[in-house]
């Protein structure tokens, strides 16, 4: 392989990093070995310089520690007022993140990056505030000491003996676009300390004897210098990769650290991170899940380690396997790992003592060309008595002893039975009965109790039944061999049976998990629309995790997200705010996280490869964190839901696009239709007016009148067309508002008929309204419009002298109005299509916009009714309007006078 060629992935990563940096604000770190070296001072000096250059700079948060020089430098800078947070009995002051974001300056000064925020503000840590500010495209100047970096905290504790609680992830160091090291010799710093420039008088002595010891400071200074130097190397390499300068490409190391629920794992993770950083190698942290269940305490510790590894930039993974070393090696081979880091076990499992090999031994023996680092445990933490190592069998304290008691009881019972057997079958058979009991205990109670049962039963057999009875002595050598064999078989079989049982439970759990996932995927896949998908998602997540669930999706118009009605979790404005934050930043927040931990639920972004499509909020009945396997199942669930939501969104977008195409097609049809419909009357107006204007011999009075009549007719046609278009647009825009009143149907029919007097007078019109038809609640004007359209239609399709009948009846709970004529029937295939816009029954040369019937149907449907066309039994066409009759018309009263 040509090692001089840059790896395309690495190049891409560099470009990506570069781009990401272009979009987000720049981070400048003023970096020092300890408090008092003058970081804040340097930062403020720099700030004044760039402000003088016209940069819009504000102070987000600067701590003066009462130092006069610092105060002087602050003068003239715009300071964002601090947020005051009531905590217990005091008021704590914090940076007002929202005010900073709202102010949108070019640069913000934020002192003390590692600061821990007061409870109740958005983020637990100030560096998270800084990340938000950077995200908003604002540059940040900040100060931090070397001991605050996660990967160094441990080393600092070892050097100084002081545990550092306020730490920031190392990723911030990488994120920094610029680092300014504020260096001072340890002697100078101690001088400053004694001059009272670092702490107030009463704290000087304590500080000088502890943290500020010369030796400490020298070590810290080395550390700071090295960190800066490493950083410079990195930058150089980034640059070289970006500019494709051939250089000393790193070896392509890949690290893997195995961790567990032991407190010692934290050190392992940090150690590996440091090594990975120095090697510039990618690294992964792996937990091997065995069939041994974990206590709640261990679970919590494990979760912390997962978070830590993730925050330090590791790829985090859980693999399953009974044999830790084999599982690790299999993964390592698969992922081309070059170095494995494991901890040195503090205690050996007694199975290991028996076999003489440990996981570590096996790992080393089988590792081949993979390097294995064994990191020793820390004295201070490692020797604590309650250490739980990943491979140690876990004993459940709460009901553990009860299981042993149960096993003992079972052996007692079997022994009683044995007394019955002995006289009939002899004492040899007792052994087999006991063996059966041990196996059953192994399967149903567990491995430990089975081992106890094996020992107990061996003892009781010997004592009670083997000759000489009621002594532990054995005379016959074959009895002795029998007992030994019995004990060995009981141990072995018990172990085997228990293992089988655990496998079975694991399989059961896996099956349940798969079933739950299958149900979710299947149901969301077959859901017909977004509502159905979300309902399914909410129901499934609630059922599997015992939680209230809210799903928030982007508002159709405008910004932000809103809870979907299917949500079972009620959210107040504050909770919605948390969800909004998650949507904006794409990170998990809420309960049991570092961001907005006071929220009552935990919020996860619904993330798909193409982006964040929404947020899901989950409030479990218990305040505990989910155990790891559940948490990863939940994450899988959320991934599935996100995909389903995205699929629905794409579907909706596609449907929208179809709708748009459809409406474009319709407007084309509309233009076609109206241009024809407009031209005909316009042509007649124009022709008639031209004739009237013609110079020359005066037209006869008759001809003049005829021409005027033509113009009048044309104008009426145009008017009707415009009215139709207006109705259509009102209907389609959704602006139609019904003015429902109690109306007399006979009256509506009368008005409609009156309006079409001219054409109806040439036909035989019958109006038949049920005598006692009650008032119906409807929009008078709109229903009249429907009747006018239907009558107009009837006139257009029939010859003078034919019949037109209007009938109104109460039928079931509807008011049924029919308009029928005895004109030509509509072809059956067209009975429904006549209600399509612009549709004309082919072969008929009738003028009209093709809008009258669709408008009528639209108006009737707006009333919750129906309009259908059918051919009459003999001849003719019947249109039937059905309008629901809801409620009783209110009573009427006589006028008083």
């Amino acid at each position: 392989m040509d090692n001089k060629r840059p790896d395309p992935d690495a190049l891409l990563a560099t470009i990506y990093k570069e781009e990401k940096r272009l979009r987000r604000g720049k981070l400048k770190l003023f970096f020092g070995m300890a408090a008092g070296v003058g970081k804040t001072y340097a930062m403020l000096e720099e700030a004044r310089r760039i402000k003088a250059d016209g940069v819009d700079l504000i102070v987000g948060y600067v701590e003066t520690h009462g130092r006069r020089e610092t105060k002087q430098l602050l003068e003239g800078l715009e300071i964002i007022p601090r947020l005051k947070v009531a905590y217990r009995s005091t008021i704590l002051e914090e940076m007002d993140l929202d005010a900073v974001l709202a102010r949108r300056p070019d640069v913000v000064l934020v002192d003390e990056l590692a600061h821990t925020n007061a409870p109740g503000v958005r983020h637990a840590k100030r560096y998270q505030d800084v990340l938000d500010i950077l995200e908003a495209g604002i540059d940040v100047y900040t100060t931090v000491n070397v001991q605050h970096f996660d990967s160094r905290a441990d080393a600092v504790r070892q050097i100084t003996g002081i545990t550092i609680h306020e730490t920031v992830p190392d990723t911030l160091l990488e994120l920094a676009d610029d680092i300014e090291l504020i260096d001072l010799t340890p002697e100078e710093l101690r001088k400053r300390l004694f001059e009272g420039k670092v702490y107030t008088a009463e704290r000087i002595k304590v500080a000088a004897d502890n943290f500020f010891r010369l030796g400490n400071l020298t070590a810290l200074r080395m550390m700071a210098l090295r960190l800066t130097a490493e950083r410079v190397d990195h930058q150089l390499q980034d640059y070289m990769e970006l500019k494709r300068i051939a250089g000393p490409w790193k070896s392509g190391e890949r690290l893997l650290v195995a961790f567990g629920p032991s407190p010692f794992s934290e050190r392992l993770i940090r150690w590996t991170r440091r090594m990975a950083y120095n090697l510039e190698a990618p690294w992964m942290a792996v937990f091997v899940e065995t069939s041994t269940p974990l206590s709640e305490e261990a679970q919590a510790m494990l979760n912390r380690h997962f978070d830590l590894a993730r925050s330090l930039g590791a790829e985090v993974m859980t693999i399953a396997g009974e044999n830790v070393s084999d599982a690790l090696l299999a993964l390592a081979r698969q992922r081309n790992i070059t170095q494995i880091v494991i901890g040195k076990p503090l205690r050996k499992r007694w199975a290991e003592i028996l076999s003489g090999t440990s996981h570590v031994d096996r790992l080393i023996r089988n590792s081949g060309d993979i390097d294995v680092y064994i990191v020793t445990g820390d004295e201070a933490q490692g020797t604590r008595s309650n250490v739980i190592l990943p491979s140690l069998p876990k004993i459940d304290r709460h009901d553990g002893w009860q299981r042993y008691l149960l096993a003992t009881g079972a052996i007692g019972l079997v022994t009683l039975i044995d007394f019955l057997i002995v006289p009939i079958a002899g004492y040899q058979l007792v052994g087999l009965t006991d063996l059966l009991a041990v196996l059953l205990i192994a399967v149903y109670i567990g491995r430990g109790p089975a081992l106890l049962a094996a020992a107990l039963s061996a003892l009781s057999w010997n004592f009670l039944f083997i000759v000489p009875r009621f002594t532990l002595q054995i005379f016959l050598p074959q009895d002795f061999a029998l007992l030994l064999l019995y004990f060995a078989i009981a141990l072995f079989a018990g172990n085997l049976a228990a293992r089988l049982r655990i496998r079975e439970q694991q399989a059961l759990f896996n099956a349940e998990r798969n079933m739950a996932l299958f149900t979710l995927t299947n149901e969301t896949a077959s859901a017909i629309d977004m509502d159905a998908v979300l309902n399914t998602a909410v129901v499934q997540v609630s059922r599997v995790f015992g939680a209230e669930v809210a799903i928030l999706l982007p508002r159709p118009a405008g910004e932000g997200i809103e809870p979907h009605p299917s949500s079972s979790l009620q959210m107040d404005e504050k909770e919605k705010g948390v969800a909004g934050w998650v949507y904006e930043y794409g990170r998990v927040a809420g309960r049991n996280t570092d961001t907005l931990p006071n929220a009552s639920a935990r919020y996860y972004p619904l993330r798909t490869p193409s982006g964040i499509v929404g947020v899901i909020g989950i409030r479990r009945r218990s305040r505990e964190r989910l155990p790891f396997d559940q948490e990863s199942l939940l994450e899988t669930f959320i991934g599935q839901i996100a995909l389903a939501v995205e699929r629905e969104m794409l579907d909706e977008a596609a449907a929208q696009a179809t709708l748009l195409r459809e409406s474009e097609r319709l407007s084309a049809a509309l233009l076609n239709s109206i241009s024809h419909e407009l031209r005909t009357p316009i042509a007649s107006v124009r022709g008639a007016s031209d004739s009237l204007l013609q110079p020359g011999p005066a037209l006869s009075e008759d001809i003049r009148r005829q021409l005027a009549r033509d113009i009048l007719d044309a104008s009426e046609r145009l008017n009707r067309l415009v009215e139709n278009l207006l109705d259509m647009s009102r209907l389609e825009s959704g602006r139609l508002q019904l003015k429902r009143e109690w109306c007399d149907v006979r009256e509506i029919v009368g008005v409609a008929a009156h309006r079409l007097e001219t054409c109806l007078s040439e036909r035989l019109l019958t109006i038949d309204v049920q005598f006692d038809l009650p008032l119906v609640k409807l929009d008078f004007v709109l229903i009249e419009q429907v009747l006018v359209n239907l009558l107009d239609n009837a006139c257009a399709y029939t010859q003078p002298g034919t019949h037109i009948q209007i009938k109104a009846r109460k039928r079931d709970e509807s008011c049924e109005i029919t308009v029928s004529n005895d004109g030509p029937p509509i072809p059956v295939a067209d009975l429904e299509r006549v209600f399509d816009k612009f549709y004309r029954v082919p072969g008929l040369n009738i003028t009209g916009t093709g809008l009258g019937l669709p408008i009528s149907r639209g108006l009737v449907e707006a009333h919750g009714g129906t309009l259908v066309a059918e051919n009459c039994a003999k001849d003719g066409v019947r249109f039937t309007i059905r309008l629901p009759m809801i409620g009783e018309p209110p009573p009427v009263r006589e006028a008083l006078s």
Partner: protein
Amino acid sequence: MSSGPRVLVIDDEIQIRRFLRISLEANHYEVYEVGNGLEGISRAAQLRPDLIILDMGLPDIDGLEVLRRLREWTTTPTIILSVRDADEDKVAALDSGADDYLTKPFSLEELMARMRVAQRHAQPGPQPTVFTCGNVSIDLAHRQVTKNGEQVRLTPTEYALLRQLVQHAGRVLTHKQILKEVWGPEYMEETHYLRVYFAQLRQKLEDDPSLPGLILTEPGVGYRLATD
């Protein structure tokens, strides 16, 4: 020419004004025209016309506002011109004192009829007490209603309704106006009273109650009693 009644036309559309001028002058009116509302108000004050034709859609101020300002000092009969889909505007104008309305496009015949009715109602002096339309005759002085010469028995409410229409024969009355006069101001929203009682009245008076020729419904606005 100058002896006819004086009509002020307030409309911003020059074609409408021209058509009105030609048609009204042909019918012996003296026509004055203005193109906006404010000018319309001052011209009305100067001219003291016998009739005003007011378009609801004016470029400067709303036609309804012009009407209200006119009604502050004059009862000159005013007919408003409006477009379809503006039933609420029409009703508001009628309730604010307009005498009648026409929906564009309208026929000249309709306009002339409305103007005649409005002028007649504006005439000072006692109104005739007997009204006749077709085969129906109503004698307000004797509270007698006859059809084809035969007496029709009406309930007090029916009669009160009919009297309202007769007193404004040919003019449109809005639902509110009728309800307020007959039942009282607190019943102004009870339009279903009108549906029920007018149905009864039509049963008693119309030749064909399904195709009324006497009591006409103005959809979305109110009722009108036909004049011959």
